[in-house]
């Protein structure tokens, strides 16, 4: 059984675009929003880049240009380099588990259950809570006391946030708990877009549940997969709030991410220039990863 033919997709897509163009408002409708965006986001971001080439402490007038010295320091900074490893591990764990769980939840609440509306709300609820609140809440859930929290529930004796070899995964678990519902909603939207006729046709051809998922649902979910992977990758790479509130990078340096390192350089160590250099590297890295991801994932998208 071949995936849905691409031949039918093209006329459908161009027809939709034509319809959209006719009704599209003129570009200057976006001008006020763009102006605000430029003033509040673009200008400060670009103006801030200059500091990456200085040794400014964050306060006072003393500042001199140091060229690329900050980037050289970064390469030799054991702590920052270690945090890159943590950031990548955390990102991979979050991307895989969050989207896996999100997809399963979406498939689960997509079937005709009586309580599915309620379940959708329940699974989505953590998304609307502030990440810092979630981290504080999970600090209680991750209490090392064997009689309370998650340990009490599962009968374990794990030092969730205090054991350096476990802490990073505990944070990943917390993030997945919060954002799996977010992935679920995007997958659900994708599932709603899969035409029932295709399922019926596949059923008549004798396809089972797994085959219908593999050859009908999965290819048509590709746009949702693209968005989910991209959003969770970006979210993972720049993860800050949850780590900061739950462990502040500890125990030792076990959960230090690039974001917490750059925060500490700016506000704890008073090295604003160096911190900006790290931020710049992080921004470029996130941009590069997302561009590659979008380019690759887009190429495998099909439409019904």
């Amino acid at each position, binding site marked *: 059984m071949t995936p849905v033919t691409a031949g039918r997709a093209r006329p459908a897509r161009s027809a939709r675009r034509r319809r959209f163009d006719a*009704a*599209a*408002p003129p570009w200057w409708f976006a001008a006020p929003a763009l102006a605000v965006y430029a003033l509040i986001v673009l200008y400060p971001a670009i103006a801030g880049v200059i500091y990456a080439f200085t040794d400014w*402490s*964050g*306060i*006072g*007038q*003393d500042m001199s240009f140091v060229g690329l010295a900050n980037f050289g320091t970064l390469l030799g900074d054991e702590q920052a380099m270690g945090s890159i490893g943590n950031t990548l591990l955390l990102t991979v764990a979050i991307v895989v588990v969050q989207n896996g769980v999100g997809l399963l939840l979406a498939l689960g609440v997509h079937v005709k259950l009586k309580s599915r509306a309620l379940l959708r709300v329940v699974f989505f609820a953590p998304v609307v809570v502030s990440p810092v609140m979630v981290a504080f809440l999970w*600090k209680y859930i*991750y*209490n*090392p*006391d064997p009689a309370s929290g998650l340990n009490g529930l599962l009968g374990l004796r794990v*030092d*969730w*946030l*205090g*054991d*350096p070899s476990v802490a990073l995964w505990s944070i990943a678990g917390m993030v997945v708990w919060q954002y799996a519902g977010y992935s679920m909603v995007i997958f659900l939207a994708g599932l709603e877009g899969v035409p029932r006729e295709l399922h019926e046709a596949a059923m008549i051809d004798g396809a089972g549940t797994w085959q219908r998922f593999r050859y009908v649902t999965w290819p048509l979910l590709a746009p949702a997969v693209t968005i989910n992977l991209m959003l969770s990758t970006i979210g993972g790479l720049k993860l800050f709030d949850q780590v900061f509130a739950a*462990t*502040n*990078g*500890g*125990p*030792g*340096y*076990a959960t230090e991410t690039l974001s917490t390192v750059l*925060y*500490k350089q700016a*506000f*704890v*160590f*008073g090295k*604003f220039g160096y911190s900006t250099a790290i931020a710049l590297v992080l921004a470029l890295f996130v941009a590069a990863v997302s561009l590659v991801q979008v380019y690759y994932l887009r190429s495998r998208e099909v439409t019904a």
Partner: protein
Amino acid sequence: MTDLLHHARVSRGQFLRMMGGLAVATLATACSTRPETTASTGGSATTELKFVGVADQKTPMDELVAAYQKAKPAVRVTASFAPTDQVQTSVRTQLGAGNAPDLHVVYPGNGSAMSMSQIAGAGLLADLSAQAWTKTIPAGFKPAFQLDGKTYIYSAGSSVIGAVYNKKVFERAGIDAPPTTWTEFLAVCEKLKKAGVVPIALGAQTPWVTQLITYALVPSTVYAKDPTFDDKQLAGQASFADSGWRQAMEMYLELQKRGYFNDKPNGTTFEQQTSMVATGKAAMAIQVSAVLPDFRKAATSPDDLSMFPVPGADDANAVWIPAGVVVGLGAAAKGRNVEEAKAFVDFLGRQENINAWAKAIAAIPLTQDASSSIDPAVQSFLPFTKDRAVPFMDQRWPNAEVQPVHFAVVQELLAGDATIDEALKKMDEAYRK
């Protein structure tokens, strides 16, 4: 978007007129509020002073701000408080942007990004040297208050680090007096452990808590032997690795090895540590006296809690204690109301106000008179304060990196992820940065 407009039956023209109207209305309100804000800085109207502080300053500040309001109704001090990390972020950002609050929290000495030396060094703190109270700062505390001979920070006194203990739990375990030597201290812990309580609660998940046990021991293992250690270290003639710091770390880990801490200290927070001692689940916690009010608040019978100095040596006469100037405040040098802000600091510097502030946080008042009161819990520290006390170590460290490294290596040591050699090497590297 277009659908929405169609359904709402609003034409593009109507929509634009609507938006235009909104914009005009916004501008109009913006203009009308502007004169009001400038009026507050004018001559006869009230002056508003903004203060941003850390959470431990709330109790004394609320009390003294109210008193100042009565003494000087023309000035209104609005105070806001937040945990240390947040304050550090927001105040440093405001300082960097040049719109600092008139008064803000400042840490004594050097060693943190919000410390007196770092901020005054950038020229952002007003000189308070002309005020009467600055003339009576005890000589030993001057490095905490002064940079190049000028005073830049107000602080109401000093706090000590020692063991906050539950007297009832000690009695039940058959201990009638606090220990005065290290050997006695270990024996007390052993007795408590045998009695089925956690001898020492340790909340090392909260970073700043990690440093307190080393701070409690280092005065005896380093400074009792060489009171000029700080100067030598600054001159590059001494290091963490080749000093009593090593012994202090070994003693710290010995407590862990003997099972005197609660299970999994790296996963335990300050709040959990507090409640363990307050409820009698643990017998003591090595803490700074400024958090005594937190322990008392959590306890059902607050009078059961007291403190004793941690004996870091086997000769009771060689035991030294850490006594540091408590977190204070300074006036922004470039604020709009520098003179008014300084006048408020001068008010805080009056003896009765020093007494009030110190009382609220169980501190030892900076200067004392007949009406000064000293919390009974810290009475046992007073014999030490004259010549066997040293400021908290970080107050003389040359940069803001050593302290966070100290936090991190203690967590690594507790987790068994590092050796004392590696830990002290990292601290020495940070010190030399």
